[in-house]
């Protein structure tokens, strides 16, 4: 019977440190830096970045950047990313959030506590020696339940 081990050492560590870190006024990410952002419907984003040597580029109204990452084995990788919005917390009530998309649309959202925490699994795309890793545990998500509104 096929089976796959789950290495949950990182999630276990996250559970341990979660209590040691003082709560931020903006409840956004876990101590390991992850969070969930949920938008009703589909978010259409460019599938490729313009070919350029520069770290940033603007094309068709989209801002493209390059992201440098270093993994656990200290292997450096550079990937493309596109900016799709600006997330702004209400200063009086940090549970209220606005996501501005481009220059014409905004989404009103809230920070919601999940009924059951969610484990984030990092599943290898191909079968191999690598275990599935449970990398973090998330308790809250930022959710946008309504249709986009125009920016006046």
């Amino acid at each position, binding site marked *: 019977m096929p*089976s796959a081990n789950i290495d949950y050492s990182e999630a276990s560590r996250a559970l341990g440190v979660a209590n040691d870190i003082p709560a931020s006024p903006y409840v956004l990410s876990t101590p390991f830096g*992850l969070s969930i952002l949920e938008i009703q419907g589909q978010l259409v984003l460019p599938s490729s970045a313009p070919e350029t040597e520069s770290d940033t580029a603007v094309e068709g109204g989209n801002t493209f*950047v390059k992201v440098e990452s270093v993994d656990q084995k200290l292997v450096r990788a550079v990937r493309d990313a596109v900016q799709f919005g600006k*997330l702004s917390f209400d200063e009086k009530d940090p549970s209220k959030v606005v996501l501005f998309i481009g220059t014409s649309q905004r989404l009103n959202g809230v920070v919601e506590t999940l009924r059951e925490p969610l484990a984030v699994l990092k599943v290898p795309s191909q079968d191999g020696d690598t275990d599935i890793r449970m990398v973090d545990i998330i308790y809250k998500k930022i959710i946008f339940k309504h249709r986009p509104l125009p920016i006046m």
Partner: protein
Amino acid sequence: MSFSVYSQIGGSDDHKYKLMQLPKELLEYLKTPDNVLEFKLPLSRKNHLVLCTESETYTVRQMNHSNTQLVVEDLQVPAVGRKLMGLGPDSSSSLLAVGLCSYLYELTPSLGEIETAGLPLYDGTAELLVGSVPLSVESLMQSSPIARTCFQSQWHALCGSEIDGIAVILSPDFVTNVLYTIIAVAIAEKWSSFTLEEMAPRLASENSKFTRLVLETIAGKFCECKDNELSLNRPEIAKWFGIMSLKKLATATSDKDLLLQWKSSLPPFFNALLDLKVLRGHFYRPLAGRLQYLNKETLSPEIHARIKDMFKITKDWDYDEFLPYVEEFIPATKKADAVILKYAKKKRMGKLFVVCPR
């Protein structure tokens, strides 16, 4: 406070992010590192995935949704190990979407099950073991979608044992013989309770096939254990002999005759309360006042087809005798009637409720 939100283009080729709901017990379990946690994909059922811990089994269900659910990294947090190039210090208040999840894994606690298909049936003769694929109990446990600590009790409940290093299911007649001998020895020795060490040599002296492992299986199924002392579970033993008496019926028999046969099948001097109610789920009534054995395993594994099969056998079922045959399909959150009435009609006949086709 505001953040620029970015999405990685193309995602990562070597892994995918998936989200899984964590029930309270599992969250507690994760606090202790280096325990067993694994996904198992049983071959006996299609699209069935389970998650096993050391002591719990969960059925995994994929809940699809149409929202855009992004796993985002806060680049301010050093643990993330990523930074935007060419944006200077401003890049710190940025979020980067690294994974898109179109479904969640929902976990439901379950009992787990042992894959018994293909296991040899052992009736005391070694010949039956020849030709079967040898599988040890340890390998069987690893290949079954069940938590390790729940395996043993369920294995014994199925009359599973190990003969010459091979996992086998003990045949009902063999189980009856061993049980009969255990009861006879306990009565002869005037033991109200006993240990495995006391019983094993006495049992082996009666029959060399009645090994220590066989005794452990029978004791696991028919004895209650307290401080290493075993005492006979009389209601469970009586039920076993009742089912065996039902199986031996060639034709439909009256309740009174079955009770007589049941009583005479018990070992001498073994007293237990005999009540037909405990045999519900093992018989049907082809005629009023007469009953006959009906094996649940011969019916369809799907509720609608199973109820159809049951009405083909007989049209009117006593509600209490009908229920045990469909109980496994009734979710814990629903009332039995809410499920049964979708496929059948329930009517009152005097003091009884009867289930019949719609």
